[in-house]
């Protein structure tokens, strides 16, 4: 039982990170029906910005997190303006290919500047741990979970209580009608990219501190897993992305902990296939017909 609880703590920590990245996928998809494959690399850039802030500027956790989120938000807007906006009325496949191109560009430009070697974060958070019975929760895990919850609450507030949130919801339902109602669609889309990218940046800093290891290709696998999480939860749905992220994190941990860690990724993707067969729109997705 203790071991099970310990595995749950591990799974929730990992899942919170997936959830933070998955939110960006789901929001961007929800609003312009684009699978932003560069999203995992925005997360990688976020980790490097956090690395620079903590190593060279010697900042603490919170300032590093904020700087990273702001930088990634700006990066998200730039990517959208440069790479996606000119193609907004092109075919779906053109935008998808561009997204893959942006992803590779970010990875290899970063590799050019910082090298391919892994780097380690300075110790920003203590290694202390709290023992609840025989379950051990490290401070880093607490920070990950608390930060993730705080950001998700903030997102719920933005989407449901602010004017911009209302505009986002309107654009996601029907962008032409929203425009007719006086909503500035371009600005709303930029804002969505900014929030999604900021969340990915936060996840990057958290991962850097938690695992103490970053490299230019670190975004590939978590990006893919977070995409799976978003699809699993129902792409386009914000609560779906959170649930999807946590489920994938916990599932991975349980498969490694009780089964064989070699089957971890296979199990995740197999489960995704099963969900999609029986519930094609994902767990919380709307059952609308959609050609991708």
């Amino acid at each position, binding site marked *: 039982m203790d071991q099970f609880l310990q595995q749950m703590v591990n799974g929730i920590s990992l899942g919170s990170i997936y959830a933070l990245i998955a939110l960006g996928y789901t929001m961007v998809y929800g609003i312009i029906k684009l699978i932003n494959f560069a999203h995992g690399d925005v997360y990688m850039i976020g980790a490097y910005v956090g690395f620079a802030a903590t190593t060279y500027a010697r900042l603490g956790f919170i300032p590093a997190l904020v700087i990273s989120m702001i930088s990634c938000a700006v990066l998200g807007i730039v990517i959208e303006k440069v790479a996606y906006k000119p193609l907004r009325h092109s075919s779906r496949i053109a935008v998808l290919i561009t997204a893959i191109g942006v992803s590779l560009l970010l990875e290899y430009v970063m590799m050019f500047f910082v090298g391919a070697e892994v780097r380690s974060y300075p110790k920003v958070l203590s290694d202390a741990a709290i023992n609840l019975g025989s379950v051990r929760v490290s401070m880093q895990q607490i920070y990950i979970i608390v930060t993730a919850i705080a950001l998700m609450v903030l997102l719920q507030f933005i989407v449901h209580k602010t004017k911009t949130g209302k505009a986002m919801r309107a654009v996601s339902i029907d962008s032409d009608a929203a425009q007719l109602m006086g909503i500035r669609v371009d600005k709303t889309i930029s804002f969505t990219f900014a929030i999604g990218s900021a969340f990915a940046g936060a996840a990057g800093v958290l991962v850097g501190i938690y695992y103490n290891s970053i490299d230019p290709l670190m975004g590939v696998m978590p990006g893919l897993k977070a995409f799976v999480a978003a699809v699993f939860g129902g792409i386009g749905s914000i609560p779906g992305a959170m649930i999807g992220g946590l489920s994938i994190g916990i599932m991975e941990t349980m498969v490694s902990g009780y089964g064989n860690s*070699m089957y971890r990724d296979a199990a995740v993707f197999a489960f995704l296939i099963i969900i999609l067969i029986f519930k094609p729109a994902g767990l919380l997705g709307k059952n609308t017909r959609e050609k991708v």
Partner: protein
Amino acid sequence: MKKTLILLLVMIMVIGSFTACGGKKDAGNGGDAATEVKIGINYELTGAVATYGEASVDGILMAFDEINAAGGINGMKIVPVKVDNKSDAAEATALATRLMTQEGVVASLGPATSGNFMATIPVAMSSKVPVISASATADEGVTVDAKGNVNDYVFRLCFNDSFQGVTMANFAANNLSAKTAVIIQDNSSDYAKGLAKNFKETFTAAGGTIVAEEGYVAKDKDFNAILTSIKGKQFDVIFLPGYYQEAGLIIKQARDLGIAQPVLGADGFDSPVLLELAGAAALNDVYFSNHYSSLDQDPMVQDFIAAFKEKYGSDPNAFHALGYDLGKYIADAISRAGSTDPTAIKDALASTKDFAGVTGTFSMGQDHNPIKSIVVIGLENGVQTTSVKVDPK
């Protein structure tokens, strides 16, 4: 019409490239061979295992500089032809071909890791140019092929994995009095799998039990799940064959979870990045087998360390030392061969006796594996504090 034109163009290009290769080869091997000797350096200078490649090349170039400063090999200057295989096996093969057929090297050094080195073997065998690695430790498929025949043109000057796995199992059983062990292996590398196999065989033969075997793949970052599951088990040591990038994270996460048992590894641990990733506090009771220890008081080793520090401003690690020995070893063979003919050099490499290097004195064995000793290094707060030398049986 268009198709035939394209076909014609392709054919011209193919034929053109063949003749270009042939032509250059003659120029490289003949020409001014009397005043200089070209040696290929095919290493991982970027990519996942770049630290191994860079360190080896620093060592090799240091040896070459010393030899050239002292008048070269029989009056010939060594001209290194350095290429970057990007830690990629396909790239390593392509570059080996270029070095041997276009650049006209008399021998090629590297790559550093077994997989990349193996990728260059077929090229070496067909071009009849010796390839030597100082750190390709895989058991199978390196100097001896699948049928048990020695690959004539392939050499290494490090011990192989079975020796490392066996040594660490004996070290666990004898020096640490371990009765039970957990193996956490990198399933994406032949190196780790070979080590794990030999550790398991020797450890169980000595009366020990393997309590659990876990696996991971390169680039994984989260090991909490497997570590939590082994935490619930009773065991004396963890055997962790793998590279420093994951090993550093595994050791840190294990210590964070309260797993305090000794961790054993092999030469894949030897990188300053291990300390960065794990942190000094986690690196206690960590032991790994290695080619060389800076704690060795042999004057040759201490002189090398002093000279290296002067040249590069930092302490050498095992890959620097192996690279340095590799540079000296190939020069020694060319000088004894008295010729720059790759086949004569191959024979000289094979007949090496009592070559004194920084990583130990060795003679080349029948199967082109050197017969040399191994050291087991112990870490305390991330610093190498103990070293035990183990001789081959």
